[in-house]
């Protein structure tokens, strides 16, 4: 159980995103905005991605992060936010589905 009442600045995705921004890096922020059934990470969870594909945080238990990072690079390049949906019913389930059987919606936007 995490007992701290203060932010864990070294691991907090939004703090890391702000640091990247200050370093002049391109940044995308992915956020879980909806979940159905069993989902590994709660609504509001973040994955932050820089222009080189480095990332921190999570939007699932590691099942779809790779796909989100790829989409995020796209979002950084053209500046247009995207809504991604992942689940077992998804046609790409074999590559990036959620083995837990849940579904999630992830909003990916560029910082700035």
């Amino acid at each position: 159980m995490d007992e701290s009442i203060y932010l864990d600045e070294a691991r907090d995705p939004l703090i890391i995103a702000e640091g990247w921004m200050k370093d002049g890096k391109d940044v995308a922020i992915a956020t879980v905005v909806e979940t159905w059934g069993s989902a590994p990470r709660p609504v509001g969870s973040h994955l932050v991605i820089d222009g080189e594909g480095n990332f921190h945080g999570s939007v699932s238990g590691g099942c779809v992060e790779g796909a989100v990072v790829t989409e995020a690079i796209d979002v950084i390049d053209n500046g247009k936010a995207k809504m991604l949906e992942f689940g077992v019913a998804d046609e790409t389930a074999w590559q990036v589905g959620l083995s837990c059987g849940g579904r999630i919606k992830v909003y990916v936007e560029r910082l700035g």
Partner: protein
Amino acid sequence: MDPYVLKTLNEERRARRAAVLVTDLGDGRDRIVREGDHVAGDLGAAIANAFRTGNSRSVDAEGRSFFLNAHLPRPRLVVIGAVHISQALAPMARIAGYPVEIIDPRTAFATPERFPDVALHAEWPEDVLKRAPLDSYTALAAVTHDPKIDDFALKAALDARCFYVGALGSRKTHAKRVERLLALGAGADQIARIHAPIGLDIGAASPAEIAVAVLAQAIHAFRSRGLEAKGAVA
């Protein structure tokens, strides 16, 4: 996300102040709403709910889709007094999701043997609270009975707008305490926020039962934050 919005949001989170990030999923615009800011209509009601529950969610309002990301500081419980009640209260509160700190300058009471796995300060509240100030996401329970130890912390809790302030002692004891707090400069409306005698009235008799009553009262205070103005909660 707007860079300035991210910077502001992180400032609020670092300072342990609650904020809801509202993102319009149609055009991507975002803004920060702080606790107490007035937002009208269905969106305002959804935001108020996000502050109360801490749950983030998507909502449809005014013909648009919004995502509300609730960033609430982690609530915690500060207990003044390393007494028998505190020994039961500390593990119970931790299980309920409220990290606990115990402060008592009496070194015979504040021992790690009596309080294993608890953040324990064998110091005066004045000194500890200077380092780690109270805030509106902190509950304070003063259970020593000793004015020298309790009073400063109670006044500090009222000034910091702790979401819960409870003080152990009979009505008679509390009446004397009220006089002392008035002398310390506390307002009558502030003092009225103190729960005394402490704990929900469940007929608690043993120290452990009193701990249950205190924890339940603190949780109730936390989950009904913001309802006081509407008179829904005493």
